[in-house]
């Protein structure tokens, strides 16, 4: 098991290093020749040797899932104490804070929107980054022809990363990632406090989709879920003040990203146990994830953060299907990155490949689950 932790850390460090291969050609993070010495071959690999880069990423994903499966199976016995687990989680988060947001441009969109708001002092819901043509960030920001896509609470949160970054792109990236890592660790703590089970913390903390989409790519879905979970925890408790805090937190979650709107009906169901609430929340978010999100854009891997977060608080002995499904879904969604990595564009066979990569593992898991249950029964 000790060796497994070493393998995990080697994979994490390698992932952090490999991520710099995806550095946008229009973005210069450092003029240091040592940086260029390490980064240039990686960029060549990612942009000019796509098949090898895709294979490398696939191996990283496999290694992370292998470690994840082992941690889920034996982690409780190995880590024994919460503090020991926390140490590993903090160390891995701190390593990935320094990674490059390899698989998405969303982080740059957050950074540039924050710059429109706090440096240019323009309303980000009215002024698009592209309307300030001499803004240097435009060189490496995509979707600059859109006004702010997220709620005002998110815009306010980006002020922290923006000011910590002090105008330097690399520092700003790290500042945003530090914020993500802080919320990620906050979640680990919350899961531990509520469940008192190391397996639940492991389920969340080592999930490769969480690791890649939150700690590497720096997506903001975790903030929406953070406020929502705090909100429902408070809402479940007695006392007017606690309930008000809960409502405010749920409202803040909506004002980060609107997906938690589907959870609002839960506020009106009386005498709802925590376990039942989690189950219904999972179902509602699944509807938003599988039905609504693809209508708006497409099934983005980081949307599964919503489901994994909810599943992390569940009783794993009771909810074997949901926990297993969440793991398989995480794997299937990480495979969605492969067609783009290989081809360098989203169109062509990309959509059909992404659909196949997503649904084949899910259908396979569903079949296996039904078969096993029938087999057990007979």
């Amino acid at each position: 098991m000790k060796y497994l932790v070493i393998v995990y850390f080697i994979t994490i460090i390698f992932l952090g290093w490999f991520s710099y291969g995806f550095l946008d050609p229009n973005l210069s993070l450092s003029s240091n020749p040592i940086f260029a010495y390490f980064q240039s071959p990686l960029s060549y690999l990612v942009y000019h040797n796509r098949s090898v880069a895709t294979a490398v990423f696939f191996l990283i994903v496999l290694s992370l899932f292998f470690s994840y499966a082992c941690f889920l199976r034996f982690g409780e016995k190995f880590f024994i104490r919460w503090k020991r687990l926390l140490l590993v989680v903090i160390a891995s988060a701190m390593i990935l804070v320094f990674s490059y947001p390899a698989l998405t441009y969303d982080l740059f969109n957050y950074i540039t929107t924050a710059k429109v708001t706090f440096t240019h002092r323009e309303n980000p819901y009215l002024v698009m980054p592209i309307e300030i043509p001499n803004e240097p960030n435009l060189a490496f920001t995509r979707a600059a022809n859109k006004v702010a896509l997220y709620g005002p609470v998110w815009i306010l949160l980006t002020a922290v990363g923006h000011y910590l970054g002090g105008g330097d792109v690399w520092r700003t990236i790290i500042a945003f990632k530090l914020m993500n890592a802080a919320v990620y660790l906050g979640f680990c703590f919350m899961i531990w406090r509520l469940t008192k089970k190391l397996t639940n913390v492991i389920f969340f903390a080592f999930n490769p989709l969480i690791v890649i989409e939150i700690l590497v790519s720096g997506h903001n879905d975790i903030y929406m879920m953070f406020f929502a979970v705090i909100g429902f925890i408070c809402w479940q408790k007695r006392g007017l003040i606690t309930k008000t805090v809960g409502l405010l937190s749920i409202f803040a979650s909506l004002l980060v990203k609107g997906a938690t709107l589907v959870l609002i009906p839960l506020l009106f169901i009386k005498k709802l146990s925590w376990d039942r609430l989690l189950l219904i929340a999972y179902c509602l978010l699944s509807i938003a994830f599988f039905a609504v999100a693809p209508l708006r854009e497409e099934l983005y891997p980081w949307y599964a953060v919503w489901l994994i977060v909810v599943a992390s608080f569940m009783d794993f002995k009771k909810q074997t299907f949901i926990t297993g499904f969440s793991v398989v879904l995480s794997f299937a969604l990480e495979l969605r990155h492969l067609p783009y990595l290989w081809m360098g564009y989203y169109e062509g066979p990309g959509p059909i490949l992404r659909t196949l990569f997503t649904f084949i593992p899910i259908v396979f898991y569903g079949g296996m689950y039904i078969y096993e249950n029938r087999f057990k029964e007979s």
Partner: protein
Amino acid sequence: MLIAYCLLFIVRPAFAGYVLPYPSYMPGSKLYRVSRIVDQLKKYWYFGNIAQIKYHLGLADKYLVEAKTLMEYKQYLLATDALFRSDKEFLQLPKYVGDAKKEKKDVSAFAALIIEAAEIHAGVLSILASTVPEQFIWTPEKEKPTELNLSVLLRASQELRSRVAREILANVKQ
């Protein structure tokens, strides 16, 4: 195939230039007062110099269309009020273009937009000048009549727009 080639060279692509908005709520509508209050409140939502350019240009357009519609319905007193408001909004633009430039924002695209808007506005005003009477005495019931020098007002509005356009052009070229 031949027809396709012919079409390619004969048919010119159409480009939508600067377009004025449709008329919004008009005086007499129950929502007119609300829309005016909303217009005032929007000022705070449109923070930032670029947003302010959008805000004032949008209102200048809106009130000009209001003035045009009212003149077409021979509601000259209300129309001149709308025209004054449009002028007032248009007059704000050089300040925000200048302020945005001081903040080192490239506002050349907005300057070009304002100059184009000024041309379109001037076109509308010149059509109006040719259709409305030069002078008009507005006589409401039980109130004093008001003498409206429509041609003078329209010419002044046209001049204001070309002055603003010149000012912005000079500012951007600096």
